[in-house]
C-alpha cells in the first residue's frame, strides 16, 4: 500500500490549516473576558444569574464573564462615572426608565446591525423593543418582563366561600368585603398607599376609561378619573377593607402583610413570585389577572433590557445579550426569580404553559400596556398625583378636589 500523501490529501490538509489560521477562526477561539454590569442583588436573582452564566459558559467556552453587581439605587451614578472616565463595561443591564438617561450619555451602542440579522427578532412584540429604542434603532435586547398581575390567598377565598378570584373590580370589592375581618386582623386587600403606589392608581384610571396622556398632552377625563379614584380610596375610607396602615404601606409592607396572612390580595408583578411561593404553601397562593375595570383590564408590562456599552468585544457582547432571549436561559431565570420571559415565543414553551401559576402572566402579555414613556409623567404620578390621593386617605381632601389638583399638575408638567 502506498503511504505517500496524495495531492488531494495535501490540499485538504492545507485548507484545514489555512482555516485554523484564518483571522475569523482565531477570533472566535481566542479567549475573551466580557464585563457585565447589572443590579441583580437579591439571593434569587443572584442564583438565576449564576445559572445563566454557567449555561452561557457551556455554550461559549472561550468567553469568561466579569460580572459586577451594583445596587439599583447607585446604578446610574456608576454608569455615569464610567462613561465620563471612558471605562464603560462591555455589556450592561438597562431598565426601561433609565434608558433615556443612558442613551443621552451615549452609554449604549446601536444594535441595528446585529438585530437586523437576528432570527429571534420576531419573537418579541414591537412594544417589547420600544422601551430601549430611539428613532427606530434598538439600543437594548429585551431580557425579561415584569408582568403585573394579582396574588391572592386561595385558602382565605375558600374559607370565605368564594369560588375563585375576582374578575372585575366589582367582584374584587365584594371579595374584599367578604374576607375582611378586623377582629382577626385580616383584610381583603393590601393597598400600596405609600411609595410606588402611583402605578396602580394610574392603571386604575386607564381601566376606568380615562387616558392620562394623548400625543404628549394631558388627557385625563375628569368624570372617569373621579370614578376611579373614588373606587380606590373607598376601599380605605368607606369599606375599610385594607389595613389601617395603608396610607404608609409601600412594597415591603404589602409583601409582609400578604405573607403573614394579614391581607388576602395584593397587586404586584411577576417579580415577587419567587419570594411568595417560597413563603406560602401551594394551596395558599394563587395568581390571577388584575381585575377588569368598567372599560378595560389595565396591567403594565415593564421590560428590562441588556445593552452593549463598549465596542471592544462586540461579537462576544452580542452573544451574551442575545443569549438571554433563548428559551433555556429565559426559563432558568424564570424558575429562579419569577421574572417572566420578554419573548412571547418563549412564553409559549410547555414548561411555562404547563404551570398554572404562570397562566395569568401569559394572558397579560397579550393585552398589557407599557409604562407611559412621555417624559415627566412617571415623576408626576409619583410626586404629584399620588400625594393628592394620599390626602383623600387621610381625610384632608375630597375625591373631586384631588382629581382637579391632579389634572392641574399634569397640565403644568406637560405644558
Amino acid at each position: 500500500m502506498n503511504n505517500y500523501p496524495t495531492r488531494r490529501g495535501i490540499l485538504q490538509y492545507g485548507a484545514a490549516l489555512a482555516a485554523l489560521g484564518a483571522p475569523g477562526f482565531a477570533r472566535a477561539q481566542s479567549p475573551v473576558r466580557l464585563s457585565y454590569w447589572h443590579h441583580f442583588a437579591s439571593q434569587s436573582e443572584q442564583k438565576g444569574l449564576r445559572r445563566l452564566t454557567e449555561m452561557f459558559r457551556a455554550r461559549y467556552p472561550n468567553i469568561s464573564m466579569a460580572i459586577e453587581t451594583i445596587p439599583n439605587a447607585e446604578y446610574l451614578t456608576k454608569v455615569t462615572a464610567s462613561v465620563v472616565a471612558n471605562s464603560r463595561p462591555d455589556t450592561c443591564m438597562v431598565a426601561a426608565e433609565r434608558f433615556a438617561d443612558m442613551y443621552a450619555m451615549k452609554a449604549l451602542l446601536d444594535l441595528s446591525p446585529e438585530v437586523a440579522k437576528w432570527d429571534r427578532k420576531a419573537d418579541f412584540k414591537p412594544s417589547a423593543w420600544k422601551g430601549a429604542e430611539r428613532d427606530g434603532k434598538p439600543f437594548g435586547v429585551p431580557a425579561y418582563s415584569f408582568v403585573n398581575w394579582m396574588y391572592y390567598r386561595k385558602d382565605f377565598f375558600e374559607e370565605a366561600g368564594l369560588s375563585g378570584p375576582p374578575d372585575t373590580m366589582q367582584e374584587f370589592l365584594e371579595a374584599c368585603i367578604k374576607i375582611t375581618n378586623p377582629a382577626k386582623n385580616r383584610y381583603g386587600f393590601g393597598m400600596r398607599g405609600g411609595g410606588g403606589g402611583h402605578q396602580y392608581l394610574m392603571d386604575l384610571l386607564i381601566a376606568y376609561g380615562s387616558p392620562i396622556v394623548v400625543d404628549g398632552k394631558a388627557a385625563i377625563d375628569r368624570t372617569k378619573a373621579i370614578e376611579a379614584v373614588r373606587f380606590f380610596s373607598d376601599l380605605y375610607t368607606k369599606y375599610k377593607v385594607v389595613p389601617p396602615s395603608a396610607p404608609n404601606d409601600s412594597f415591603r409592607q404589602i409583601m409582609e402583610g400578604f405573607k403573614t396572612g394579614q391581607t388576602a390580595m395584593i397587586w404586584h408583578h411577576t417579580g415577587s413570585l419567587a419570594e411568595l411561593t417560597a413563603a406560602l404553601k401551594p394551596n395558599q397562593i394563587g395568581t390571577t389577572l388584575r381585575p377588569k375595570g368598567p372599560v378595560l383590564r389595565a396591567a403594565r408590562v415593564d421590560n428590562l433590557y441588556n445593552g452593549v456599552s463598549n465596542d471592544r468585544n462586540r461579537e462576544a457582547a452580542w452573544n451574551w445579550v442575545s443569549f438571554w432571549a433563548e428559551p433555556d436561559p429565559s426559563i432558568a431565570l424564570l424558575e429562579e426569580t419569577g421574572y417572566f420571559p420578554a419573548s412571547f415565543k418563549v412564553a409559549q414553551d410547555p414548561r411555562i404553559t404547563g404551570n398554572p401559576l404562570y397562566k395569568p402572566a401569559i394572558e397579560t402579555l397579550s393585552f398589557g400596556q407599557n409604562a407611559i414613556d412621555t417624559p415627566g409623567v412617571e415623576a408626576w404620578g409619583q410626586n404629584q398625583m399620588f400625594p393628592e390621593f394620599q390626602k383623600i386617605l387621610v381625610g384632608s381632601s375630597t375625591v373631586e378636589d384631588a382629581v382637579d389638583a391632579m389634572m392641574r399638575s399634569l397640565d403644568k408638567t406637560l405644558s
Partner: protein
Amino acid sequence: MIVGSARERRLWNVATYAIAGFFGLTALGPIVWLVLTSLKTEADIVTAQGVVYWPSTLTLANYRELWDQTDFPTLFRNSLSATTLTVVICLVVGTLAAYALSREAFRGRQPLLMGLLAIRMFPAVMQIIPLFIIMKAIGLLDTKLGLALAYASFLLPMFIWLMKGFFDDLPGELEEAARIDGCSRLGAMWRIALPVARNGILATTVLIAISAWNEFLFALMLTTGADTRTWPVGLQLMIGDFQLPWGLLAAGGVISIIPVVVLFAFVQGSMVRGLTEGATKG
C-alpha cells in the same frame, strides 16, 4: 449643684437615674433588637401575630448563611486594609498639617482652613465622578490604596480641623522651651506636642476609623471586583429590589459593629478624655 434635704436629694437622684436609664435604653434598644433579629428564624421575624419580641428558637443559621453566601473573610479584610490605610494617611498628613496650621501664621492660612471646611460641605455624590476620573488616570481604580486616598479626601479635612483644635489648646511655651534646649521644630512637635495631645489624636483617629469602616458610596463606586470590595458594599448587595433578607442583614449588621465596639472598648478612656479636653479650663 443640688442643695436641699436628704429626701430632695434622693428624689433628684432618682430622676437623674430615670432620665439616664431612659436614654440608655433608647440607645441600646436598636442594638438589642438587631442582635435578637439576627438570632431569629424567618418565621419569628415576619409573623402573622405582629412583633415577636423574644424568639421561640434561637438560631445561628443567619450567621452560617451569611458566611456561605458572602465572601466574608475577603470583604472584612478589604475593609480592614482600607480603614488602616486611611488612618495612616490621616495620621501622617493630618497631624503635620494640623500642627503647621496651628503654630505657623503663613499667608493663605485662613483661606486654606476655610477650603478644608468647604470640602466637607459638598455631598459625596458630587465628588464621585471627579475622583473616579482621577483614580483611573493614575491607575488606582479598584485598589485599596485608591480607596484609602478617596476616603482621605473627605476625612482628612475633618482630622485636620479637630487636631488643630487640640494643638491650639496646648501652651506654645512648652515647645519653645524644648527649642531653647536644642530641639528642631519637628522635634518639639514629636517630643512635646504629640505626647501631650495623645488623647486628642486617639479620639480623632477612632472617629476617622469608624467613618472609613462604614463608608459605602466611595467603596461601591471606586471598586469593581470581589477582591477589593468592602464589607458595607457586600452587606448592601444582599438587598434586592423585591427581597429583603431581614435575618441575614441583621447578622451582617451585628458583625459590622463588632470591630467598632472592640476598638472603642480598648480606647474609650483615652477617647473620652480626648473629647472632653478643653471643655474645662483654669
